[in-house]
């Protein structure tokens, strides 16, 4: 996490923003973000306000205190406000050239809500995420990863069938000499079987969307 120049983490109103997001109070969200942006750099606002709020919301979902609908709506609202207050896209707030190339897809399946929530979180955290879409086959993804030089590939799944297909994907990436590509998985099957990500040869997994930020940040630093 970069140095916070003008304010400490405590001084940025993390809890206040979280409460406004969960009550869908658009004006309060905007007010808090404008005030933060007036006294801190965009990167500080992202790292010390927006990301900690998303993390707390993710932890709240994991603990069963916050519902998925709230996670989704909060993500939408924070995305709109970050774009408006800090300038769209948020990713340009950082030196994005230094970032690895990240993409996200839904493998062999049409359940896109997980992808939407995770990519929104990553985007407002300052990462550019290329959307590879829904219902993609293993061979399509291998091709796209090669053609677009993807370095971190996020895969969202909902059905066990799709989660197991990640095993074929990681094997095919290795066969095509693309095993340097980091595969990060998530979605219901991985939550119910915490060993599944290893079994299918992924490099990491995340329980919630905000864990995706942690995992990707660590990979980007490495």
């Amino acid at each position, binding site marked *: 996490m970069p140095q916070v120049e003008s304010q400490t983490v405590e001084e940025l109103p993390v809890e206040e923003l979280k409460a406004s997001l969960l009550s869908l109070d658009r004006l309060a969200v905007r007010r808090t973000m404008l005030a933060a942006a007036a006294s801190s750099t965009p990167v500080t606002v992202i790292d010390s306000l927006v990301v900690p709020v998303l993390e707390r919301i993710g932890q709240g979902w994991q603990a069963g205190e916050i519902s*998925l609908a*709230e996670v989704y709506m909060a993500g939408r609202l924070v995305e709109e406000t970050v774009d408006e207050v800090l300038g769209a896209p948020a990713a340009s707030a950082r030196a994005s050239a230094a970032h690895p190339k990240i993409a996200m897809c839904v493998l062999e399946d*049409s359940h896109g809500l997980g992808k939407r929530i995770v990519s929104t979180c990553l985007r407002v955290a300052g990462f550019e995420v290329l959307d590879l879409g829904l219902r993609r086959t293993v061979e399509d993804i291998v091709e796209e990863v090669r053609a677009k030089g993807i370095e971190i590939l996020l895969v969202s799944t909902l059905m*066990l*069938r799709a989660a197991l297909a990640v095993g074929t994907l990681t094997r095919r990436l290795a066969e095509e000499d693309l095993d340097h590509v980091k595969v990060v998985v998530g979605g219901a099957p991985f939550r119910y*079987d915490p060993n599944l990500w290893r079994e299918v040869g992924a490099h990491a997994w995340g329980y919630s969307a905000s864990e995706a930020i942690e995992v990707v940040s660590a990979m980007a630093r490495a």
Partner: protein
Amino acid sequence: MTPAMTSLQRVASVLSGEVPDRVPMFLSTGLHGPAMLGVSMREYFGSAELMAQSQLLKRETYRDDIVTSFAYAAAEVEAFGQETVFYENGPPNAGRPVLSSPSDIEKLDVPRLEDCEALQRGLEVTRMLAAQAPDAAILGIVIAPNSLPVMQLGFERYLDLIYEQPDLHARLLEVNEEFCAAWANAQLEAGAHAIGFFDPLSSTTIMPRDLLERTGLASARRTFCAIDGTVLALLASGAVIPVIRDFVELGVAGVGVGPDEDIGLAKAAAKESCAVIGNLNGIEMRTWTPEIAEKHVKNAIAAAGGGGGYIVCDGHGEIPHEVPHDVIAAISEAVHRWGHYPLSWTDLPAEL
């Protein structure tokens, strides 16, 4: 320990708050049907005979108590004209949403059950089961009016609708409620003994409580009034404990509990007003050994079996087809071994 009751009596006794001869179980292995019978998923789900046959075969193999006419969730949106996508290695899924924009809701009519082949097949399965397994409890399934729209519209657009267009949301619920009650009643008429009301959206995993009170729970209340039979609320492994009292007030006879929750706590929250059903982890089950399966069943019976009020089941209501036969057999064995009342072994110190 000769069984004093038939499966139907055993399940009925639990659902009416009495203590049966043993803990009943529901091994929901519909997706194993094609492999059991050596046919493709497509062929299987296209034939009432094959689906009924696989239910009878699983009852013979695993000696469990409940059979079902449930095929796959997307069958209900077929009634609205939506396509289903079939896979050979997993359950069918709903295809592209039939409502391409929320404004389509204004023109949406309640479909007629007679016009939908998949639902007619479901009724046929129910009638076959009623004729051929008179001792078994037959469970019909409906998708709740507030959960169906995830398939009709897509999840994102449905959440947007709930928050942004409450009038259209209310109209969609109205159509779905009428459809849901008709579909439930047709299954009861065909011979189902109870209806499993699949409603994961009414779980606090998916929606906040205050919103649920105005939407999912209010809709469930209206729908239950129109269903002429016993209803079980199955939240497809979404959290149920925070809404268990609400469902009890709505008059359900049982609630499904997912693997994320403690089945003993759920039983306590139900306060003997309804049965708890669950909560073996169906996803992890794929990797269990028969010994691990027995341990999970024993623990669940110890936590929730006391004094009746409990049905052993996976936490979702559908065991993935990847789960091997010997694990399912071990679950059944364990229920037959440890599930007889009185459960005197549960008073002994736990084995390590």
